[in-house]
């Protein structure tokens, strides 16, 4: 279980990323945030976001409808 969960379902680019960025501020360094999204573009975008910001993408999965991304805040 992630420390915090952000529901970004139904939101389109770039809102899942922007909301995740905001939510990460409330996660302690070393803590995790799970983002739930329905935007298929978010898969590539969260990979890029994590590479650029240095946060760690611990998991990226989908149940066919909803995507789930678990991000570990590193700094």
């Amino acid at each position: 279980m992630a420390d915090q969960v952000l529901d970004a379902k139904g939101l389109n680019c770039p809102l899942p990323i922007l909301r995740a960025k905001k939510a990460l501020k409330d996660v302690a360094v070393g803590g995790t945030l799970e983002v739930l999204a329905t935007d298929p573009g978010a898969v590539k975008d969260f990979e890029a976001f994590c590479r650029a910001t240095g946060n760690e993408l611990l998991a990226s999965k989908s149940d066919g409808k909803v995507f789930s991304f678990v991000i570990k805040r590193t700094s």
Partner: protein
Amino acid sequence: MSKESNAKSLSMIVTKGTLDWAYPPFILATTAAAMGLDVTMFFTFYGLTLLKKRLNLKVSPLGNAAMEMPMLGMHIGMPNLVSALPGVDAAATAMMKNLIKRKGVASIEELRTTALESDVKMIACQMTMDLFEYKLEDMIEGPVLGGAATYIETATKSEINLFI
């Protein structure tokens, strides 16, 4: 741009002020800021309308051959002769706003607020303020007034410079 910052940076010249063209600069600015870049937006000519307190953005199918709206299970474009009729722009704008809401796309107001909250630097073109007789009190708080030299100085220090 702060001198002590080692972050990568993005600058943009924003020249268009219609509802559709307002999206690319604000989406890229907010996303770049979220990814840790220093971002500067220079609003000039029609782009300057995007800094008004009261946004009344519109979209026009006139002269836009690529604009097709999903309607009745297909995509409908509009011949210029029809686009030129009174009320068509208003209808197209209403349709676009409805789509934006339905598809979970952010409003321009939300993206603009997010940009300001994420320390995106905004420069309002002084010459355009004079040219179109815009009043300072009609514009949002946050942007600084500046000109071409102000922008160019930023652009020379930025990794990415876009003209939109």
